């Protein structure tokens, strides 16, 4: 029987990219907002810890670039901005990386101007939103019947809202950001939990609507025979990640560096499972193998 495993495995770098980059960008926006409110040394520490979500996003982007056959021609991508969803995605990624990269470097300037830093951060936060949305819409090809649904972009944005806060907790913990021990920590976990509940609902609805689709070669159900188990694995891994962070906060001593990193890894592993399922599900209206 033909399953979509080979398709997803061939696109493994894109699975990795769409797992890491949206959550990394969302975490960057959260930490960036935290930095704008922080003062003095705390602001400096959070500013430097922004490297964590920046690198997570960058690793995702580098992974996506490795799947290109001929990166030498990459500049042509900008010729189709506004017309090809993939061009929009690359454009938003470049905007985000430029603004966040500039901010990162400029904060070490001896006489860095606060206004410039804040403006760069504002642009980077806006670009991170644009980037997440552009990744969500990158696969809206009208001929791919299993992808051309509202579930796909909504699920990807919710992925970022699950992974972003958990990764931000890890970054803010490394920056020793004070409010994390109190309400802010709980608020981030609540946001992530709400997104997890909503995302699970979207995946169940996607399964109910999309798995029955078929063309003359294969059905979506044949392509992803393990869809149900993958949704359960996603839920279990993400919930386990949230529980690790929650346990730290409940103990009253705050989340440790190790447990916040473990929580991020668990949540990202859960998202990875469903991103893999997404590529397994690829099926056009006509002939697709």
């Amino acid at each position: 029987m033909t399953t979509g495993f080979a398709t997803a495995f061939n696109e493994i770098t894109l699975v990795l990219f769409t797992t890491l980059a949206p959550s990394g960008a969302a975490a960057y926006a959260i930490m960036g907002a935290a930095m704008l409110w922080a003062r003095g040394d705390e602001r400096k520490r959070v500013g430097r810890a922004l490297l964590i979500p920046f690198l997570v996003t960058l690793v995702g982007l580098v992974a996506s670039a490795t799947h290109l056959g001929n990166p030498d021609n990459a500049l042509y991508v900008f010729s189709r901005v506004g017309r090809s969803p993939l061009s929009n995605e690359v454009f938003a990624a470049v905007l985000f990386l430029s603004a966040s990269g500039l901010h990162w470097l400029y904060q070490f300037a001896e006489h860095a101007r606060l206004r410039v830093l804040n403006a760069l951060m504002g642009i980077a936060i806006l670009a991170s939103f644009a980037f997440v949305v552009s990744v969500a819409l990158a696969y809206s090809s009208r001929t791919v019947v299993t992808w051309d649904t509202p579930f796909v972009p909504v699920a990807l944005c919710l992925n970022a809202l699950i992974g972003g806060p958990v990764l931000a907790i890890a970054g803010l913990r490394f920056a020793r950001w004070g409010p994390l021990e109190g309400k802010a920590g709980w608020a981030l976990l609540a946001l992530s939990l709400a997104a997890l509940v909503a995302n699970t609902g979207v995946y169940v609805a996607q399964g109910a609507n999309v798995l029955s689709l078929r063309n003359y070669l294969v059905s979506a159900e044949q392509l992803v025979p393990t869809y149900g188990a993958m949704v359960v694995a996603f839920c279990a891994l993400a919930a386990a990640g949230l529980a690790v962070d929650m346990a730290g906060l409940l103990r009253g001593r705050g989340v440790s560096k190790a447990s916040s990193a473990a929580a991020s890894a668990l949540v990202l592993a859960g998202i990875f499972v469903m991103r893999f399922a997404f590529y397994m599900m690829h099926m056009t209206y006509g002939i697709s193998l």
Partner: protein
Amino acid sequence: MEQVGFYFNAKRCTGCKTCVLACKDYRDLDASVSFRQVYEVAHGSWAQDDRGCWAHDCFAFYVSCACNHCSSPACMEVCPTGAMGKNELGLVSVDERRCIGCGYCALSCPYHAPKVDRAVGHSAKCDGCAERVAAGGKPICVEACPLRALDFGPIVELRARYGRAVDMPPLPDSSITAPNLVLSLPACMGEDADRVFAEGMVCNVRELV
């Protein structure tokens, strides 16, 4: 702009795959890539009646399909670099100097026409044998077909000569990308087209690349 296209006669095709191999030979494609493929669409079963006689309700036919050089090509819509384009004859082909090999064209084409050739790092597909056509010939698959089940030419002429049929399994509904293709439908579709659309399945999936 003139628009050329393919004609395929499902009443004649025996599924011999000479078209596939002629293309592979001419374009020097390895075993993992094929610009033209032959699909075997079939369904039905045999049953024994009370008197012990066997009867069947099977149908089967072959469909030879390459790029249909659509008027609304999905590959061109999604291409992020504009490498996928149409020439003056309406033939869709890849500009290798622009292609980044992202594979989005291969994912979006409902005819499974573009492939990403990882060895050379860019998309590759049927270009309608543009060089042969420019020299006044026809694509190699058309000239190779021993049953004369394929033809090629200006789509207006093909439609005038062969009709306007363009929908049959396993091809997607023609309204999606407006393929420049004309078909002579298999005999079984003349008998019960609804059943063929409802039950037909590609049965040689393992032969396809």
